[in-house]
């Protein structure tokens, strides 16, 4: 019987069937579940790496000595991994190497809408793009064959609607793929200038051959229907096109780099009008125009957001407009009841700090009622930005500023800027929100959580010792000891050295301690507790009430009530 799988699960199944031995990834929506599903197969050695660069270096090491290897990441993770990737394109592979990169058009859970197809073009790495879960499985397996046959890493590009959509999948057996022999080959794997120059020639020749062969790949296919309109598309957009323009002829690209020029020219000659329908950048359109073919599409679809069947019907079909959403109060995501970040940010707000923020659930602290984040750029940026701000405005500025990032984000990219701040004689303060887990992506273990991807015990990174070794002054405090935490934060921001304040308290969703919900008596409706922004506290005309179905009894509201009207919850 077929199984219903999200695209990410099907990629994991494809990796399993392809005989992959090593998987090294960093979590990032919408790519995370690939590696989680891979970990269910004991035949594959899976580990959460500290960041995507380390992940790719690990899988590249495995591939160089003969194993098939996989690294998975979100689109912005590809930037972090770009350094090893761009040169791995020169060395090529031994065992197959696939990078599953998940783009996020419309930014459901991301800070930008970059297009991995562009990075593929600048790194000269071919791209396969499935259009449903079955293709996720099939293309993953094919990616390993192409990787080994053409001696190149291969991108498997997903988008959110593919990664997180379920469709039926026929599964197969795991192939018996032995380790390939490893022979020392500095000309291929030591990329110093003299050798890299020779490899660059190889890269160009390989790419030309692949582009030529792509004309015969069955994953690129022409579906002729009415010849009035021909559409070139790939990935999940193909599904939207089929739905919106059922009569249009379609060239479905399964390999979206390099493109099959002869096939496209042949298709263009058979249709009266050729359009490209693609999300994000005009990647196909530019490539096709460079072939000397008249084509359009981006003038209508634009660079932003997702497409849908309705949108395509409106732009390229009958022009009918879909009904619009009614104007209603929004429901933005919020920090969970009992979230330790709420106390941490409350303390920072009390001290009137400028907050250089980072990537995690705590990014939500930019929204009302906390409204405290000054910046969010990329993983680990907070620490370096606080240092840069001090360079620009002097040490006084750092007395009223902090960098804030989670434990996993700190390990990902916060360590090196902390080294830089100490080295530069700065006096910045970094708050590590140490909730013992990678929270926002759905609770993945990390080097500081003491467990591996299977939940088994693992060596635990000692954050205090690490930061002390770097040369920072380290203080550790549970932010729910609000007074003490606020005092420590005040002392360290005002101090003349680089400090790290570790706000240590487990993620509320993982805190298994049973606590009684809080309750309110004789509320004077002063509104002080509403400033913490807890969804369990509701303001009414008669005073604040506590929603007992939401309250987890963390007791933070009790600490901020000036009249002692709140009882119960954690002491």
């Amino acid at each position, binding site marked *: 019987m077929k199984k*219903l799988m999200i695209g990410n699960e099907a990629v994991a199944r494809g990796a399993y069937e392809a005989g992959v031995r090593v998987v090294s990834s960093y979590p990032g929506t919408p790519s995370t579940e690939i590696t989680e599903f891979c970990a269910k197969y004991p035949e594959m050695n899976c580990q959460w790496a500290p960041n995507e660069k380390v992940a790719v270096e690990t899988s590249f090491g495995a591939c160089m000595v003969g194993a098939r290897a996989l690294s998975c990441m979100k689109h912005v993770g590809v930037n972090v991994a770009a350094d090893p990737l761009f040169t791995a394109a020169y060395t090529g592979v031994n065992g197959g190497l696939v990078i599953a990169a998940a783009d996020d058009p419309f930014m459901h859970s991301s800070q930008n809408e970059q297009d991995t197809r562009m990075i593929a073009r600048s790194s000269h790495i071919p791209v396969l793009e499935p259009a449903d879960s079955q293709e996720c499985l099939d293309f993953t397996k094919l990616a390993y064959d192409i990787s080994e046959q053409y001696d190149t890493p291969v991108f498997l590009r997903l988008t959110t609607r593919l990664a997180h959509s379920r469709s039926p999948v026929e599964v197969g057996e795991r192939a018996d793929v032995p380790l390939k022999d490893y022979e020392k080959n500095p000309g291929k794997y030591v990329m110093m200038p003299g050798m890299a120059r020779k490899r660059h020639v190889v890269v160009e020749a390989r790419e030309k051959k692949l582009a030529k062969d792509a004309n015969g790949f069955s994953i690129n296919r022409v579906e002729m229907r009415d010849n009035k309109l021909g559409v070139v598309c790939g990935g999940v957009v193909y599904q*939207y096109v089929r739905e919106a323009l059922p009569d249009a002829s379609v060239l479905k690209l399964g390999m979206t780099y390099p493109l099959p020029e002869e096939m496209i020219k042949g298709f263009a000659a058979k249709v009266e009008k050729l359009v490209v329908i693609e999300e994000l950048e005009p990647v196909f359109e530019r490539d096709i125009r460079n072939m000397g073919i008249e084509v359009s599409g981006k003038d209508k679809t634009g660079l932003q957001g997702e497409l849908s069947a309705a949108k395509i019907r409106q732009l390229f079909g009958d022009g009918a407009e879909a*009904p619009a959403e009614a104007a209603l*109060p929004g429901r933005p*995501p919020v920090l969970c009841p009992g979230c330790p970040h709420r106390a941490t940010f409350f303390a920072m707000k009390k001290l009137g700090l400028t907050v250089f923020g980072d990537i995690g659930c705590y990014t939500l602290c930019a929204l009302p009622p906390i409204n405290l984040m000054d910046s969010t750029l990329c993983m680990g940026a907070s620490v370096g930005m606080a240092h840069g701000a001090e360079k620009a405005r002097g040490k006084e500025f750092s007395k009223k500023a902090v960098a804030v990032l989670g434990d996993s984000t700190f390990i990902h990219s916060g360590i090196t800027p902390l080294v830089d701040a100490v080295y530069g004689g700065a006096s910045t303060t970094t708050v590590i929100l140490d909730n013992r887990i990678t929270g926002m*992506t759905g609770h993945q273990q990390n080097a500081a959580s003491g467990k591996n991807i299977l939940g088994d015990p693992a060596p635990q990174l000692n954050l205090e010792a690490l930061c002390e070794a770097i040369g920072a002054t380290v203080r550790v405090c549970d932010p729910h000891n609000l007074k003490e935490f606020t005092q420590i934060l005040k002392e360290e921001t005002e101090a003349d050295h680089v400090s790290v304040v570790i706000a240590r308290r487990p993620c509320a969703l993982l805190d298994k301690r049973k606590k009684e919900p809080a309750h309110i008596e004789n509320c004077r409706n002063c509104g002080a507790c509403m400033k913490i922004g807890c969804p369990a506290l509701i303001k009414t005309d008669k005073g604040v009430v506590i929603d007992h179905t939401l309250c987890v009894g963390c007791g933070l509201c009790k600490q901020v009530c000036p009249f002692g009207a709140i009882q119960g919850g954690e002491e």
Partner: protein
Amino acid sequence: MMKNTNIIIVGVGGQGILLTSKILGYLALDMGENVKVSEVHGMSQRGGSVITYVRIGSDVHSPLIDPGEADFVLSFEKLEALRAEYFLKKDGVLISNTQEILPMPVIMGSTTYPQANPSQEKTVLLDALTLAEEAGNARAINIVLLGVLSRFMDWPQEKWEAAIAACVPAKTLETNLKAFRAGVKE
């Protein structure tokens, strides 16, 4: 094969929306249908609005349902029902829990919770929270609503129950089956 049926499931992050779409997907596949389910993970699960799409039928391509194309909207919360109403076809059916979960802008007092009821002609409103509590767990609202939906579909009840059994943890099965049957009867 049935003609295309489009079902939208909406609610507040944490209400078990993903599980509901997973059960429906499993069931459709078990009934020999082609099916696509689209979910949203990540940031939007932190108490925000959540929407999933279930599409059943032989010529389903897109995993998404466009506005005006849904046969059913299954809503776990009243405001989210109002928000998703525009997805319904003219003769589509809205099934909604009457529970109100206040969003942060309402909690903070910067706006008020809308008092209007859905305007869709075919609407089923029910207090699924109470039914779920009576079944033994307030979190089984999603399964109560599935029970209501089952009345509009031609699939045998035992198939629905088998799909629930395949997707929920074993120790919660009895409660969930009670919740489902409460929805069927309601």
